[in-house]
């Protein structure tokens, strides 16, 4: 059991978050259109894919080189095989620094390891400093999107929270005042923190440089003002060289927001040197926790992910459900793949692969061309091998044989509407031609997670023939 799976998925639309998600998805769509105007998208994707494929194919060699370079420029490197090891080493560094409070930049990797809870258990308070992450932390929630943690919340909900924290009320339409409140509250924390913790977007093996992108400036503060900077990264974030890192910094911004560069990109090469007022100590924590085991499998390319969030916004299932109902740290199509993939053969998280219509919108959106739809199918197949559903397989097998012949198809389609329709309709008390939420026995189990369309009274092939005058 790891922290990646929090609870079983709850595959139902969430009306409360749907409006917020649709607004966010529309904004992402506009960004995608801009990105396609700014660059030759397919050429950029091909190059981004090649850079990531090279990194993952040569992972052990590149991680060794990265480690060596970081040490050469004065940093400390810690390898963690598991989330628990990563949390333990971060906790030790904080304790050694005498820190009872640390500031954190947004990092999905530390969400994955459950670092916040581990630090809390050691009586160290970790303050999230990304605005959206700060909001969800103060609400006792977790992020619902890998880039926009509070995308499921409305301004009114955030205004209500800040009103409670500040002791005076906020106008939800005065976004500027809400942001100003968070800035003020967090500024004091930045100035007093002894340790800053961030993630890493890309690590350059040839120079030992950590590239970290952001919009708000909180990552710069976390990696600049405290005496100690701890950067936590999944080992797959390494890239071979500067050219690759430069391309991916542009690509992640284009794919996420349709902008040619992030608002801010920090390049960290070792601790501060000379008269620099930055951190005198830099620690890099390299997390494996299931990543190496994916190399050489059909899920290897899931490690190419640059965490841009595009597949989430593109996904019709994510847009209906929101992130929380996945029940996992990583959500949306990439979450449905990477969560069971990193968990290995354990059944934990394998239900996530069901949360897709396999429409392929995620594959089109992905800036590094991960075949997410194929991987979801592979994960479903693996889950069936572990947990065969014989009755379901027999029904589908019979159906497949019947519909493989034109005669069988025509006969069954013509009779099913007439024969089964009234039966199902009575059993379901559903609207004629409507979607039924629950099928009668013995199909009830199959409709626990999906609706079923009632058979048409007159099959399509017959109507088509009549329409063409055949």
């Amino acid at each position, binding site marked *: 059991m790891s922290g990646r799976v929090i609870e079983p998925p709850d595959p139902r639309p969430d009306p409360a978050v749907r409006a917020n998600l649709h607004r966010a998805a529309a904004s992402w769509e506009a960004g995608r259109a801009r990105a396609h105007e700014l660059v030759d998208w397919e050429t950029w994707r091909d190059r981004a894919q090649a850079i990531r494929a090279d990194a993952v194919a040569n992972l052990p060699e590149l991680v060794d080189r990265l480690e060596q370079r970081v040490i050469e420029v004065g940093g400390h490197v810690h390898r963690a095989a598991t989330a628990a090891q990563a949390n333990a080493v971060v906790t030790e560094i904080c304790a050694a620094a005498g820190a009872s409070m640390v500031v954190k930049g947004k990092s999905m990797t530390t969400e994955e390891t459950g670092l916040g809870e581990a630090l809390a258990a050691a009586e160290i308070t970790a303050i999230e400093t990304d605005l959206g992450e700060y909001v969800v932390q103060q609400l006792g929630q977790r992020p619902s999107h890998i880039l926009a943690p509070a995308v499921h919340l409305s301004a009114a909900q955030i205004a209500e929270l800040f009103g409670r924290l500040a002791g005076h009320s906020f106008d939800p339409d005065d976004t500027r005042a809400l*942001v100003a409140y968070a800035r003020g509250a967090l500024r004091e924390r930045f100035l007093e923190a002894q340790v800053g913790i961030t993630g890493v977007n890309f690590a350059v093996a040839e120079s030992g440089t950590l590239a970290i992108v952001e919009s708000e400036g909180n990552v710069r503060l976390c990696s600049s003002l405290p005496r100690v900077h701890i950067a936590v990264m999944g080992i797959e974030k390494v890239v071979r060289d500067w050219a690759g890192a430069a391309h991916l910094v542009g690509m992640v911004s284009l794919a996420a927001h349709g902008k040619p560069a992030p608002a801010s990109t920090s390049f960290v090469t070792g601790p501060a040197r000379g008269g620099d007022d930055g951190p005198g100590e830099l620690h890099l924590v390299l997390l494996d926790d299931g990543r190496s085991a994916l190399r050489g499998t059909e899920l290897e390319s899931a490690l190419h992910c640059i965490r841009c969030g595009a597949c989430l916004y593109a996904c019709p299932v994510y847009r209906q459900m929101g992130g929380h109902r996945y029940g996992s740290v990583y959500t949306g199509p990439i979450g449905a793949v990477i969560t069971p993939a990193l968990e290995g053969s354990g059944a934990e998280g394998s239900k996530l692969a069901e949360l897709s219509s396999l429409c392929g919108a995620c594959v089109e959106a992905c800036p590094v061309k991960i075949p997410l739809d194929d991987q979801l199918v592979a994960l479903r197949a693996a889950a069936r091998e572990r947990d065969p559903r014989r009755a379901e397989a027999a029904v589908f097998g019979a159906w497949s044989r019947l519909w493989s012949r034109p005669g069988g198809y025509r006969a069954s389609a013509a009779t099913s509407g007439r024969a089964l329709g009234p039966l199902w309709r009575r059993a379901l008390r559903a609207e004629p031609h409507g979607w039924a939420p629950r099928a009668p026995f013995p199909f009830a189990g199959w409709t626990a997670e999906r609706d079923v369309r009632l058979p048409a009274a007159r099959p399509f092939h017959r109507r088509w023939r009549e329409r063409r005058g055949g």
Partner: protein
Amino acid sequence: MVEHDQPQVELFRERLEQVDGRLLETESLAAARAAARALVGEATVARWADHELDEIALIEAPAAEAEYSLIRADVAVAASGAIGFAHGTGRGRAAGILPPRQIALLAQGDLVATLEQALARLYGSGPGPSNVVFVAGPSRTSDIEQRSIRGVHAPRELDVIMFRP
């Protein structure tokens, strides 16, 4: 030479303005300094020690209290409107981020086409500076209902003053 670079300058301006930054072109370092002086007026300033930034601010203040951050950009990227700068001795991180407004002086000769070229300039062959930051416009957030707001933890205003050559 200058005319040859003009399309690149125009691209840089367009991209910088798209992310809510402002570009002021001047003919010389002296003119750039005068423009910076006019912008700052009598506001408090936290500055880097670069000699080009001397005698611009009337009133200097610690970074956490200053109204303006006054820095020297080392490089700029036309394709994204970003400026890049290395921290180090006399170039404090707090002074570069804490004030609400920022003015960056940039030599036109330091404008390049892409981030890759900018990084090659900054790092060359050695390990290079320990901390380099590229900013494309002011800091921003869309975390509240996708409404874009400038200025979260880093400056909310950015004026880039470019001088020739």
